[in-house]
């Protein structure tokens, strides 16, 4: 028992950057004032670890306490690792009534029914998010605290975000969530990214959306009236359509979007390919430090023709970044041919 506490503490100290460690420990609040003062965070990590371990033994911290610390760190620094979005479907009549205590109890109960040895920690965070930490074991082994799964669920919404979940445990988590939220199924929302805040904002529409209007946009009026009025008009139009497609201001930081294309190759001048029945299979991946801003930029500057194709605008509009495109998708393909160089 002592060994696993030490290992977990070691891992944490190694993982948490020194600057962040202080705030995390403060938030945790398990150190006495004296211990806090004595801890010198400018020391090298291995010295820090030794000091913390001494305090740990002094305070008789258990594994439970250390997992608390880890959870605080992850909640305060959620933009790490890979997060995947899921959506709950087909609510029962009382799904919208489920509140925190009921959810907590039901979730713990159902998960324990499904997995003999599991350690579950549920914590409500300030912004209506319920955070769950799960350390998985099985019939024969104790929960593994070194590879926990984190789940974030926003009560009264159908959205769930998960990180570090193996395919083995996915059906178990799915079942427990569905039963405790009073929905019928949990499906993959086809949205993933390194920043939880970004995918959450995108999926839950918490960014500046711009809706198409028929009224002249204020941008056009700001333009200099003389000379390049028409060109400016075009540029203003492009900017407007770009913001309609992707959003205004700062956009959620997505890194990638993947399109699996299974459409036919269409070229009237190429008979062989036109006669072909099978789709032209390819995968297109867009990546950038801030994908939505890059795409908006491309649309404004004209690299991407406007109006923006539904395939690209779907990222913001549908809150997804993984798409499988077939010929049956309406609006998936543009009618116009690529301009010849």
């Amino acid at each position, binding site marked *: 028992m002592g060994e696993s506490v030490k290992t977990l503490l070691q891992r944490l100290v190694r993982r948490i950057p020194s600057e962040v460690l202080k705030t995390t420990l403060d938030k945790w609040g398990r150190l006495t004032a004296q211990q806090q003062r004595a801890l010198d965070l400018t020391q090298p990590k291995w010295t820090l670890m030794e000091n913390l371990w001494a305090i740990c033994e002094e305070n008789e911290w258990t594994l439970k306490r250390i997992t608390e610390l880890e959870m605080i760190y992850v909640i305060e620094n959620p933009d790490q690792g890979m997060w995947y979005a899921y959506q709950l479907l087909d609510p029962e009549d009382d799904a919208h009534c489920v509140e925190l205590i009921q959810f907590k109890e039901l979730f713990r109960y159902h998960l324990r029914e499904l997995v003999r040895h599991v350690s579950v920690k549920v914590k409500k965070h300030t912004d209506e998010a319920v955070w769950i930490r799960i350390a998985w074991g099985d019939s024969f082994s104790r929960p593994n605290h070194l590879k926990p799964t984190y789940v974030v669920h926003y009560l009264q919404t159908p959205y769930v975000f998960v990180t570090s979940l193996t395919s083995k445990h996915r059906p178990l988590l799915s079942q427990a969530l569905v039963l405790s939220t009073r929905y019928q199924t949990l499906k993959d929302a086809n949205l993933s990214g390194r920043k939880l805040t970004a995918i959450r904002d995108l999926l839950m529409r918490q960014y500046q959306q711009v809706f198409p209007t028929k009224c002249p946009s204020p941008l056009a009026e700001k333009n200099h009236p003389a000379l390049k009025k028409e060109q400016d008009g075009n540029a203003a139009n492009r900017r407007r359509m770009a913001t309609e497609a992707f959003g205004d201001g700062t956009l959620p930081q997505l890194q990638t979007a993947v399109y699996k294309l299974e459409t036919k190759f269409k070229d009237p001048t*190429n008979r062989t390919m036109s006669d072909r029945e099978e789709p032209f*299979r390819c995968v297109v991946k867009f990546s950038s430090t801030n994908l939505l*801003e890059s*795409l908006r930029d491309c649309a404004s500057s004209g690299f991407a023709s406007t109006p923006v194709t539904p395939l690209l605008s779907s990222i913001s509009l549908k809150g997804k970044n993984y798409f499988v495109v077939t010929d049956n998708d309406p609006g998936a393909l*543009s009618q116009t041919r690529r301009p010849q160089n």
Partner: protein
Amino acid sequence: MFKFVSGFCAAAADTPNMERHCTSVTRTPLNSVRVQRRSKSKSYRQSIRSCLGAASRLVLTPALTARRLNTSRKAPKSLDITEKVNPEQLSLLVKKEWQLSYVTPLYQFRHTQLKSYSRQLSAFIAAEKQRGLAVEVEGTHGSFRVSFGVVQGMSEADDDAETVLVQIYSKPLFAVKDEPPRAVWSGWLTCINGSPDYLRSLPKDFTCMPLFCSSGADGLTSLVKSWFQLTFDCCFGPLEISHTSLQWLVALWTNCHTESAIKHLKMMWTVPAASPLKVTYTVNGPDAWQLWSSVRKERHDGSNKEEEEEEDSIDIEEVMRFMQDLKSHFYRHFRTDLSAGSLDQVATALGSAKSSGRIKIANSKYMITTLTLLTECALLKMPI
């Protein structure tokens, strides 16, 4: 139709100004690398003069002055190169990523003197270390042993010089008994199917191996290049893989699909934006092949020539059409013209190439075609 003209036309040297040009070249070497004057400086000047003398003769060979990448090349056929080349040596060249450079012809390089070169380069590296030029390779003592070797049988053309392989070994800090020594740095100079006109036009004492591939610590690469420059009066320069060459590789590799599955055709573009957008376009192997063969079919259906030879050669127009078709398919979905971006990288199961000048050959069967293209690129960079 779209014709690509690359490279630069060698300035036809005006004979009256020959002497003036000559001296200016000796003072300012080609890519501003300080070439130390050795005691044999006279021979250096003579060598350059004879080079420029050759250049004046080159005016008479129009094929070379109108310099651009070949617009047509033979379709690569699977070549079991292991029949001609030592498989062990071959294994050192494939499945590794090489950084490319071009190098001007070497003066008085002898394939028979390789042992002596090995000793000389080892001594040079040791001397540079003494001077304070530290080249630390992790996990080693820091004393280096150099080995020069010939990779025989790679080239088919008579005019091509045999490929030279240089390997640098270092004593590991924790030596395992009986473990074969592993090179910490390797490099090779080669010329595969180089333009016979150019090669024959070179004065007698020059050996042309314009393509230089290196892998290992940058410090060692600089040292090796310095030594070559000092010893053989040559110059090195970076060899980027141009847009056209990358497109050639796309077509040449896809063409091999029936004999060796390419598995997929992957292309990476960068589209400019405030935060640059990277587009990775991966086409399923068999589908890429179908598109390519349909492009070839259209071309050959339209042409009148029925000789079988035509089937064997690929024209730049077919390559361009293929790329255009791929970009059109992309445009139909995303309404973004990839031509506005820059093609950075292409890859298939047969190999990968980056515009920054890195190449990896995964399958030795098509090595010769790839190296022929790269040799051509390197020759285009020759200053004369």
